């Protein structure tokens, strides 16, 4: 970013913390960008002449005499079709060796869609992963995170989902991504021949953490361009939102704000909601779907980051290693897609809802039986059948390596019902049992 001749240059910084600097300056706009010793910074507080800026690159080595130049604008991104296929850093600058993108500059973190201008999301995204399609069907315009422990293969599953989703554009917002994971995404998209549909904004573990704060807004500004201007279906992948929230807390703690739960800023809910609520289905056909990753520490979902996320997103996907079948599955208990009722039985066969619920209830019975077993009690004959059912159900439907169609997943579940249970034990509406129970029982 270049400074212009007429801009006033300040050289007396009064206060420096890890993420912020303060100085006396006049005529500064709230949210305005500045360069502090050549690093990009943004105004976060103005009291009289005292202006506080958060320095995205961190303040290491910044001197009290460093040059501060205000740029007279909020952070923005130049948008045009040329974004497609390109890789950028948190500031929207190319990191793929290509030229800068020409286009009209749009402020990031722009206004919200008027709720009455939204359309009810109602197009299912088929992923082939039955643990998602059957129990947690995804819908265009939805926002949903993976809640995952750091050792789980969430990036892989997310990449599969993205590639199978048939989106016009896939926008990757990488925050604190390891270089290996960044290359993983690049390769998998490249191998799928999808690079021209991908746009990436990446902050790796090597980059300063506060820069991450720009990533979601950059990614979503690009998404809005394609969804609104081009009526495209856009899928935005945000990984890892926990690192984003950590960056928020760094800045707010440096500004002496009173932290609320888990040292997070009191505004965490609103901050995250502003990002996730950018997911939208427009009546014109364009849509923005957000699939995110929120890593957990020790599986704790009551921590402020997953907790606030859960209250904002339309469900969450949990991965779990099922030791009985030695595979990773989509956990049917803790996973939930809130929008599934918009599509199941509509974009899928009409027995879907009942089959889904019945299978999960039986799976829960199996879980109870397992607890019994672990506590050293005898199993009833029903318990034994439930356990057998659960093992097959887990392997044939819940495992993340499953790739089947929406009819097949229902048929396969009916087969398992019939193999292990009587219709009364399954407890599905009679009209469906009459129609779909194998051997017409």
């Amino acid at each position: 970013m270049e400074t212009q001749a007429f801009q006033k240059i300040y050289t007396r910084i009064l206060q420096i913390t890890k993420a912020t600097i303060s100085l006396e300056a006049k005529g500064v706009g709230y949210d305005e960008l500045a360069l502090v010793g050549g690093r990009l910074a943004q105004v976060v507080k103005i009291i009289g002449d005292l202006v506080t800026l958060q320095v995205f690159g961190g303040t290491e080595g910044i001197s009290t005499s460093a040059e501060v130049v205000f740029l007279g604008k909020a952070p923005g991104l130049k948008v045009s079709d040329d974004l497609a296929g390109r890789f950028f850093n948190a500031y929207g600058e190319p990191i793929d060796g290509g030229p800068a993108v020409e286009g009209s500059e749009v402020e990031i973190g722009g206004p919200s869609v008027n709720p009455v201008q939204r359309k009810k999301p109602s197009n299912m995204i088929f992923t082939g992963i039955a643990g998602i399609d059957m129990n947690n069907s995804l819908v265009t315009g939805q926002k949903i995170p993976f809640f995952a422990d750091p050792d789980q293969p969430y990036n892989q599953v997310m990449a599969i989902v993205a590639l199978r989703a048939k989106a016009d554009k896939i926008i990757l917002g990488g925050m604190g991504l390891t270089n290996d994971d960044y290359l993983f995404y690049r390769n998998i998209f490249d191998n799928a021949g999808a690079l021209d549909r991908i746009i990436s904004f990446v902050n790796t573990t090597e980059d300063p953490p506060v820069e991450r704060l720009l990533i979601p807004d950059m990614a979503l500004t690009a998404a809005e361009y394609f969804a609104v201007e081009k009526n495209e279906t856009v899928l935005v992948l945000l990984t890892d939102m926990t690192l984003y929230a950590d960056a928020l807390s760094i800045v707010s703690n440096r500004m002496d704000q009173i932290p609320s739960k888990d040292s997070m800023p009191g505004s965490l809910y609103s901050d995250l909601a502003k990002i996730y609520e950018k997911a939208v289905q427009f009546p014109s056909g364009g849509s923005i779907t957000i699939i995110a990753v929120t890593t957990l520490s020790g599986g704790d979902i009551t921590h402020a980051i997953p907790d606030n996320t859960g209250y904002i997103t339309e469900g969450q996907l949990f991965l779990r290693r099922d030791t009985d079948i030695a595979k990773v599955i989509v956990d049917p208990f803790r996973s939930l897609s809130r929008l599934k009722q918009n599509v199941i039985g509509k974009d899928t066969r009409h027995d879907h809802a009942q089959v889904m619920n019945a299978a999960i209830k039986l799976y829960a019975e199996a879980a109870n039986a397992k607890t019994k077993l672990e506590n050293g009690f005898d199993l009833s004959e029903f318990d034994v059948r439930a356990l057998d059912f659960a093992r097959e159900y887990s392997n044939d439907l819940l495992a993340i390596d499953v790739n089947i169609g929406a009819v097949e997943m229902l048929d396969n579940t009916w087969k398992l019902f019939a193999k292990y249970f009587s219709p009364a034990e399954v407890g599905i509406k009679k009209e469906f049992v009459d129609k779909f129970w194998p051997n017409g029982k």
Partner: protein
Amino acid sequence: MTKGTVTGIIANLVIVEVDGPVSQNEICFIQLGKTRLMAEVIKVIGKNAYVQVFESTRNLRVGNLVEFAGHMLEVSLGPGILSKNYDGLQNDLNKMEGVFLKRGEYTNPLEDDKKWHFKPLAKAGDLVEAGTWLGEVTENWIPHKIMVPFKFQGKFTIKTMVSAGEYTIHETIAVLSDSEGKEHKVTMVQKWPVKIAIRAYKEKPRPFNMMETGIRCIDSLNPIVEGGTGFTPGPFGTGKTVLQHALSKHAEADMIVVAACGERANEVVEIFTEFPELDDPRSGRKLIERTTIIANTSNMPVAAREASVYTAMTIAEYYRSMGLRILLLADSTSRWAQALREMSNRMEELPGQDAYPMDLPAIISNFYSRAGYVYLNNGQTGSITFIGAVSPAGGNLKEPVTESTKKAARCFYALSQQRADSKRYPAVDPIESYSKYLEYDEFIEYLNENVSKEWLGQLLFAKNLLIRGKEAYEQINILGDDGVPVDYHLRFWKSEVFDFVILQQDAFDKIDSSTPIERQKYMMDKVISITKTNLNFDSFEEVNKYFRRIINVLKQMNYSVFLSEDFRKFEAELEEILKERRIS
């Protein structure tokens, strides 16, 4: 009017140096180029007014000019509110242009030019006071009363009254003279500050009428009353919003005010899309015709979110003064409390528990106290039943918002993670939850006379059944299936029948989603008689299998049209199953 200039900006908290008097909660407008940003005074120290801006403050500068409005945040009350979609400040969302919300765009909540057919209900010479019905217009299907403005203090005499005819909301329909003979014109629209309760009623007794909700775990276990208060705390994903939507569709009320306060936009869109299609069985009209939506979703400005619940409550109070029964729903009041917390943090106030403002309990109880059943000055009755969703951080009910709300609301419908995980919807925990109204003599009398003499007894029987079932279940888990007498299994399964058939209810099934009280009584009788039937079993495995069959048939009944051929068929099947093991 007082003017000022901006001297400080911290997110949406702006400090303004003023040149004259300002009052707490006064509205002001900050001039930013061609747009005016609305804000509210929340603290004053000397010449500095601290204002919370209802918009993004991007590009705001020190030195920007501010104009104070001389009044608090007010809403416009008059015909035309029904079926509207407002934001938290009562801007009509449908009148806004473009796909995106524009900063500083404020739209008219009512229609200036629309003519309403006005019929006088009072005549010249009548003595009137704030809230007196002067006339009425028909709004959708509601007889919308035009009242003496609530701001009018004391007694007035009607000087002139227009004759029946077509008028716009701004035309004078009556002229009143006060005790000093001063004349006051009355139109069909009036303004009222949202943070102040409308008290144009004679008396607020303890509520006693049951409000039928069609939701069995409420009506058949912990019923709520017309004019009552309740809240539904629950971790994310346990069904608060589904429950609120079910209430808004099926509850027995003349008008529904839905405050979507800091929650998902897609959930509001669901109402926008569904309600114009769904029938209201009572009026035969579409549900949207009895509904007003205040949508201040989570991505909309935080300060306006705080205002949104008050806007909703004030609209409800206005309609209650017309003698109507209002159901007010707010999803979620925790977001409102968080908005308060954000501001309190920015003002560097001394924080209370979890960094919430110290006076949070008072703010919450003050809000809940605005609900209630009232006798109007003309002897008619009206009510606001308020049910708020609460989103406890970490699902922990010991957090400040839940605890403060528990002190204020009389019905507690706790949504349990465990029930939600096992898809036992609605996930209202039947043992933790309660309705304080069951202790009200006047309510018990109402139940005896209007529902049935047995109803209360049956509710209490069912509660006991559930507790005993739970105890039996715990014993079975400790001692093993074989380690307890068969009787324990029987006890457990009887409670399961009640759970599966009465408590669990599929919000997305056409028939099961709402159960009229007649049907609830029928099923209650049925289930209770089953649990009282002496059945004979030799082993727990028999109990297990047998009750699964019973539950299955009863559920099929729930899915069938009441008393239809199918329903009767399943009922007969049930009778057959019972015969197998009944000990006569």
